[in-house]
């Protein structure tokens, strides 16, 4: 049986760093959401690659799709762009202030 140690979460174990613990909570939500967007984008990429090679992109084919090197480098670009975009306000708000 999986004991799901990781769901016995980190909360409360350490001092929450940052200007306000609520920022951590919200940022945690934003990061989790962005992670799902990134995953979905990669799923879509797998669909497109399968379709391009004439295969049926059903669930099983996508689940077992092994990205090629070319896929990986394209996906890395999506990812970096996504992170850059989501984090831009964070960096910008830091810079306004000081």
């Amino acid at each position, binding site marked *: 049986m999986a004991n799901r140690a990781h769901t016995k979460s980190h909360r409360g174990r350490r001092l929450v*760093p940052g*200007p306000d613990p609520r920022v951590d909570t919200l940022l945690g939500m934003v990061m989790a959401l*962005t*992670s799902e967007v990134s995953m979905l984008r990669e799923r879509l990429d797998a669909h497109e690659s399968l379709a391009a090679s004439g295969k049926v992109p059903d669930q099983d084919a996508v689940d077992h799709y092994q990205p090629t090197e070319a896929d990986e480098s394209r996906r890395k670009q999506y*990812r*970096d762009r996504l992170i850059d975009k989501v984090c831009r306000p964070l960096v910008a708000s830091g810079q306004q202030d000081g």
Partner: protein
Amino acid sequence: MATDSQNLKTAYRPTHDEAARQAFVGALKGYVNGSMESQLAAEYDNQLKFDFMEKHGQEPRDRYQGTEAFRHSHLYQLWGSAVYTSQNLMWETVGDTCDRLEPAFEARQAMLAKRPTLGSLELQDDFVPPDPIRHVEIHRQPGGYFGPAGSTDLHRGMHYFGTVELYRNAKGLGDGSVAVGEPSMGRYLLGALQRRFDAIKPRAVLDLGCGPGSQTLAYKEAFPDAEVWGVDLSAPFLRFGHLWAEDQGVAIHFRQANASDTGLPDAKFDLIISHILFHETWDDILPAIMEEAHRLLAPGGIFINGDTPYQPDRLSIPKQVTNHWQVINNGEPFWTRFADTDVKEALIAAGFEASNVFADYDPLGTGEYFIFGGRKGT
């Protein structure tokens, strides 16, 4: 789903979506450690340093004064929040893969238990990891390294094992392309050994603080005729390591003990290696670990260690500040004390001759790694 006959290296494969989430969290951590930290450094150079000078009449001289200079920076606070939340996301993301695979690992464990073993696993039922380490969740790994006594859990070992490459690469301390479970750092340390010494043919090799044994395998790979041992405090890690090694048909002897008091015989080993043990153990015990290594080495035997290259004299003030933040908030409580230690002095105090000790930096990935140790006199 893996079956009980499938080997674990094949079974340990994230699904498409798990791999995508892991890649995301790796990239996010890379952004936070890379791009965001560069922005912090720029803010320091352009503004914070001068603000501090105006107030105190001098530049910040150490991590404490540096932290004071950063205290009110929004970017610094948001960076902290981003490190914190990305760390949580990392554990959760890899945890999902471990949850899914744990039954397959357990099935494989049950199957292998019916066969004679190649190596061995010695755990002590009543072993209590010493203070202060047992109270710490290193890297904020949920539940820490140890778990309750008597548990048979594999999850902690899997969780560490699945995460460590991701973590290493996001810090620029890996080569970025290593598959989970490849003993890349073990091989790297053998390279560091080769750069310093003529080829050796050890009869016995010890990995101190071997954790889940993923790097230990490299030593058996390099020295197939040697008896290879791994010692660690963590029963769950050793349990995982034993399973992982047996599954690959590699004979390793795992033993639960403190590296400062292994219970192994004098002069048994020709080679003792550790990888990232020292920055994760409390510095009070460091002299005793070095004495133990000296005791365990045969004449002419070599002690070599690889660890994080974060000695303060090598780091800018912003980097010292972000490291110090990790020490306090991200489960690295022993890190700076280790970085402040003069390891050569400690090796000499433990019995190594001054002319036979070394402490320097080898290239690794885009950065460097701290390599230190000594050769026992003949």
